[in-house]
């Protein structure tokens, strides 16, 4: 009997000890994107853990899957996520409306430009910390342009002329995303430079004359001088073609520069790859420059203090500097003002960023909650335009229908005219 009592006591005390230990374990769950900065954070997490004693359970997901996972977990109120990377232009409005972001009242946002903060704030409060900015650039093959006796195109007319001269069976003169919804972001700078917009004060206006001119031009140049099957191509299809030497000029986001010149991934020598400002249009030159990624704390998190510690570390200037040194274009202003850092960043990125920061547009898609659906609708116009090389007689009629549909969605979500 005595032995039994002792055994019971031992079991009880060890149970108490383990419960105590569990209570003291500081643990958070973080969802990151498969993005160069997400990878950088993941590799640096052990430093954070040893400095703070907080255990970080980090998961990395592809961007679309990250949105799906977060949405499913938050909507079913079953989430244990504390901190997550988020795309403000794609999901920001929807997450805010559903109350999934925790307002970041104590955070110091003084190092972030106003236009960058415009997509991180709703009303007087800010809900996410901007991490990375991206802008549209023109990647080109220096050797191919030189051989053809061409200079780097500075406007759409020169772009078209160069694409025409270079285009052959072996190399596409020009490439950009043609895959419906995916193309909408890259088309945006063409629309802006023609003097158009997707939305104007919460009303869809992409059937306006300037926007239609832009969509026709995009269809013409891609349909005539683009790679075969471009209507099913996004950046992940075009980049390998550029790296294989099958594309002479390519417009897309600045974020791909590191991969385009990475000798392990490309057959084109780095010295033959150029990066230039996006070409000007008939009305202006205002390429997009957007906050592509931010980081936020989940409203339902039970570890908000620990989450804030992680957030402050993940957005620190030290880590932003590390990001800049591997060509990740960070959102903090100070890292772009530090000459010691800039000396180590690719000059092409520095120059194109300076231009876009001064002249660019902070949106690259219709900024609304139901952006996925709106992108699909605009994407239909892009595909029609490419398939007809910009000549479709049906395009204006289609655009009117799509505008009506997007306005209907805006009304459904209570965002029309706002």
């Amino acid at each position: 009997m005595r032995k039994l009592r002792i055994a019971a006591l031992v079991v009880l005390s060890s149970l108490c000890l383990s419960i105590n230990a569990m209570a003291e374990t500081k643990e958070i769950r973080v969802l990151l994107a498969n993005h160069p900065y997400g990878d950088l954070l993941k590799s640096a997490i052990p430093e954070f853990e040893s400095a703070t004693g907080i255990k970080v359970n980090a998961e990395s997901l592809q961007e679309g899957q990250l949105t799906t996972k977060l949405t499913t977990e938050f909507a079913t109120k079953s989430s244990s996520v504390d901190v997550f990377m988020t795309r403000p232009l794609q999901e920001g409005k929807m997450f805010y409306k559903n109350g999934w972001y925790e307002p970041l009242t104590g955070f110091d946002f003084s190092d972030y430009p106003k236009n960058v903060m415009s997509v991180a704030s709703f009303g007087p409060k800010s809900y996410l910390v901007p991490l990375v900015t991206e802008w549209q650039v023109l990647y080109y093959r220096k050797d191919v342009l030189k051989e053809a006796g061409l200079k780097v195109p500075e406007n759409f007319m020169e772009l078209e002329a160069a694409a025409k001269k270079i285009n052959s069976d072996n190399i596409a003169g020009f490439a950009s995303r043609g895959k419906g919804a995916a193309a909408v972001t890259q088309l945006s700078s063409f629309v802006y430079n023609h003097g158009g917009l997707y939305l104007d004060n919460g009303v869809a206006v992409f059937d306006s004359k300037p926007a239609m001119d832009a969509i026709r031009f995009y269809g013409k140049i891609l349909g005539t001088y683009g790679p075969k099957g471009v209507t099913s191509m996004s950046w992940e299809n075009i980049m390998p073609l550029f790296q294989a030497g099958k594309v002479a000029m390519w417009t897309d986001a600045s974020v791909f520069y590191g991969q385009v010149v990475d000798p392990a991934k490309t057959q084109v020598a780095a010295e033959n790859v150029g990066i230039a400002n996006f070409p000007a249009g008939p009305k202006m030159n205002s390429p997009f420059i957007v906050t592509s990624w931010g980081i936020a704390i989940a409203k339902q998190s039970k570890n908000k203090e620990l989450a804030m510690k992680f957030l402050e570390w993940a957005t620190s200037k030290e880590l932003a500097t590390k990001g800049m040194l591997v060509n990740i274009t960070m959102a903090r202003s100070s890292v772009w003002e530090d000459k010691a850092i800039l000396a180590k960043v690719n000059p092409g990125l520095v120059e194109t960023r300076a231009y876009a920061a001064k002249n660019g547009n902070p949106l690259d898609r219709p900024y609304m909650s139901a952006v996925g659906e709106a992108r699909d609708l605009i994407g239909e116009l892009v595909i029609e335009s490419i398939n007809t090389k910009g000549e479709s007689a049906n395009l204006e009629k289609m655009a009117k229908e799509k505008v009506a549909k997007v306005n209907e969605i805006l009304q459904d979500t209570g965002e029309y005219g706002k």
Partner: protein
Amino acid sequence: MVQSSFTERNLRILFPLPAILFVAMLMVFPVLYTLFLSFTNWNLTSGSPLSFVGLNSYTRVLTEPRFLHALTRTFLFTIFAVAIEGVLGVAIALILNRAFVGKSLAKLLLLLPLVATPVAVGIVFNLFFDPTTGLANFILKSVGLPQGLWISSAASVLPSLIIVDVWQWTPMITLIVLAGLAGLSNEPVEAAHVDGASEWQILRYVTIPMLMPVILTAMILRLIDALKTFDIIFAMTGGGPGYASETLNIMGYKYSFEYFRMGQSSVILVVLFLVVFGCSLGIMKLRGFSEI
């Protein structure tokens, strides 16, 4: 004592109860919940709580041309894929049922597509069908044939996807039919031989009719699967270019996880459920008919 008599009296209910509860929780509940959601306007992009809207979501989705196109496409994909798989699967099984050198190796090779992960298959075929750098066009060019756009063109995307489905799933039909052939009695065939029937007549009037129940079973399994095909289409085209390869399942996914219109997405899935259920019932009736 009272307890044991209760158990004894209710044995036939108590014993299968865990299994029934398991099925109810994991299979019936999701279906009923989807049905419930289809009568609501749950839309995460509006940020407002879900409310009951009766048949509103049904009217809105069912009158969309996009829905009708997706429905037609689902049937086209299924009919062509399953018909080709049926013919090829039975033909290959009949060939493999004969003795020849390297039969085991042929069987093994044939079964390889079955064990491949659909997403991996999708990625490999994406590279294969690439119009600029893909092997398909390289082969066509080498033999002097015109090159195709494969999954990059609205006109050829569905046939290209059917090719991939046929490549992956024909072996399943072959496998089932081979098992059926192994179980057939040899006597009717011998009797036909004695009566002077030709090989073709034996196949046409003896073997195939005897195999019919097995063939139809294999076809039902494939049909249900083909109607719900998601992985290959999602991995290869995501429903594109545009909506050119969007089937009901892909459309349902997009409405849920890209548009976040949960109520309307449920309508699409309810319709898909009814389509699959109806088709399975139809074929089962046919199977019963063939057995008579």
